[in-house]
């Protein structure tokens, strides 16, 4: 593709320069400055809304500012970055974040791949099924959390009602430390599998048909075709879907706050919630800022590891 030279005039305009009227001069100026003028709103907004806060959060993270108990901040160096590591609650939060992201994205991937392959077949009523399928993706997470709170109810929730109907013991879904995170992972899988399906389905629809024909002639089984043809060909889409979903999984906030509030006894508290409580309940601004910076770096790490993996699979 030929790259348009920067700041070039449209060819037609160049010929009519002779006109020299004010209107034409304005258009000419706009033509020459287009990449700058068009980006002014975006850059101004994003600079104000991202660059300024990021520098401010860095500055805050080196102070011992607490809104009520220590309103006049002092510079404390890297204290806020060191202190949390002796706090079991913060270590637990990192672990929960990691476990939540890995388990929910893993579940979403398996279900998403299966459903994408199902939706890739041709059948009547596709639009209907797809609309229903897309519903969780656009539903307000706080609203669906309310439904799951009722589902998870120990005595009267339909999940335990169903288990008891099968003759099993009910589970303390969100009130016991060992199940709380699992319950949230179930909600996460339910909520975000459709997105995974959507991306993988787009990938499946873009695959060439020839390799499958060849494999069929060679007598490959369906499983062999999935493992040796579909998955390798689909790698780009798989990695994109995994990258996007794991970043969102690490950042999950709404359902966790609404369903368990990080409890019981911090058993399902993730980094996002921990920082939220630190900043806006206990009002330890300095510590929350440092944790926030660490959280951002954590996400960058996850992202760059996954991008590296994606590059490696490409050269394969």
């Amino acid at each position, binding site marked *: 593709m030929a790259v348009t030279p*920067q700041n070039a*005039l*449209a060819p*037609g*305009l160049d010929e009519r320069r002779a006109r020299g009227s004010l209107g*034409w001069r304005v258009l000419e100026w*706009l*033509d020459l400055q*287009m990449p700058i003028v068009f*980006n002014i*709103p*975006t850059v101004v*907004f994003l600079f104000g*809304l*991202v660059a*300024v*806060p*990021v520098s401010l*959060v860095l500055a*805050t993270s080196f102070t011992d500012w607490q809104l009520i108990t220590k309103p006049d901040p002092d510079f404390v160096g890297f204290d806020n970055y060191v202190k949390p590591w002796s706090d079991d609650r913060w270590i637990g939060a990192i672990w929960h974040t990691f476990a939540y992201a890995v388990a929910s994205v893993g579940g979403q991937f398996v279900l998403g791949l299966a459903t994408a392959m199902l939706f890739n077949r041709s*059948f009547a009523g596709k639009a209907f099924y*797809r*609309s*229903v399928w*897309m519903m*969780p*993706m*656009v*539903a*307000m*997470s*706080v*609203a*669906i959390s*309310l*439904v*799951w*709170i*009722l*589902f998870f109810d120990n005595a*009267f929730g*339909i999940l335990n009602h169903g288990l008891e109907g099968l003759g099993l013991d009910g589970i303390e879904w969100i009130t016991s430390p060992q199940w709380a995170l699992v319950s949230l992972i179930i909600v996460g899988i*339910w909520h975000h599998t459709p997105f995974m399906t*959507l*991306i993988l389905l787009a990938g499946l629809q873009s695959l060439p048909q020839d390799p499958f024909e060849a494999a069929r002639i060679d007598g490959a089984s369906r499983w062999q075709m999935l493992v040796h043809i579909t998955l390798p060909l689909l790698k780009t889409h798989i990695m*994109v879907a995994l990258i*996007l979903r794991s*970043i969102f999984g690490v*950042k999950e*906030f*709404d359902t966790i706050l609404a369903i368990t509030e990080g409890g019981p006894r911090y058993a399902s508290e993730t980094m996002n919630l921990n*920082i939220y409580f630190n*900043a*806006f309940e206990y009002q330890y601004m300095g510590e929350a*800022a440092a944790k*926030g*910076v660490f*959280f951002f770096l954590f*996400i960058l790490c996850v*992202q760059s590891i996954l991008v590296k993996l994606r590059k490696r699979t490409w050269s394969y």
Partner: protein
Amino acid sequence: MVVLKRLLPRRSYEILETIGTHVVLLAVVAPFFFVFFYMFWNSLKPDYLFFEPGTWIFEPLWSNYTDVFEQSDLIPNIANSLIISTSATLIGLVCGLLTAYTVARYNLRKLAMAILVTRMIPYITALVPFWIVYKQVGLLNTYTGIILSHLVITIPFGVWIMMGFIEDIPKDLEEAAWIDGASRTQAFLRIVLPLSTPGMVATAILCFIFSWNNFQLALVLGGFDVSTAPVSVFKYADPEAGGSGQMMAAATLVTLPVFFIVLLIQKQLTAGLTIGGVK
């Protein structure tokens, strides 16, 4: 399957396969649909029936909805949400269109990457400084404050999705206009703008939905005067607060409008979400 294919005549095998596909599809879709069905059904259920989870048939009780209207701030907050999400969407759309066009036509990859990085900053990291600044300048609990914070959602997302749509518009059309004497700006306004309308509709709706659903920003930056719908819904997260019926009525009220949008323009939405994800 293979055995059946050999045993049965072709026609009956095809019918069987169709039925089988639909059974599997229904089984897959059912748990996803059930949550929403439960939401709506239970919003009509009297509270005492919550203690009998096996009861599905009862006299529908619409008073749960009127109770929500009267007892919670959901209705004013839905109005607030409409104002906030619409403003944030419009600004995000304009910024997104202009930036996406220049990124696509001038190949400004660095700018695109910078915008992608802003999408990765977790809201909570940005919320600490936002809150500090807002407290200083008095933007906490105001429309301006929440709209500004929602731009963090809509602008990067708008740019990213519009880029996919604009790259699909053939460049030849603009070049033809240039030859006919149009300036770049005129070609943009008369050719690209009309052609990107479907993409803009999809982008706008997606931006709106993401802004409408966002809970964390308004939870921290909103307050007693100005807050958004998810914050009102969140107040029902404790079943003691208003009973299961009101809980589900509140959830239904904020979920249904979005579903109508999805049903109306399902195809464009799928395109938008896929482009935003893959490209």
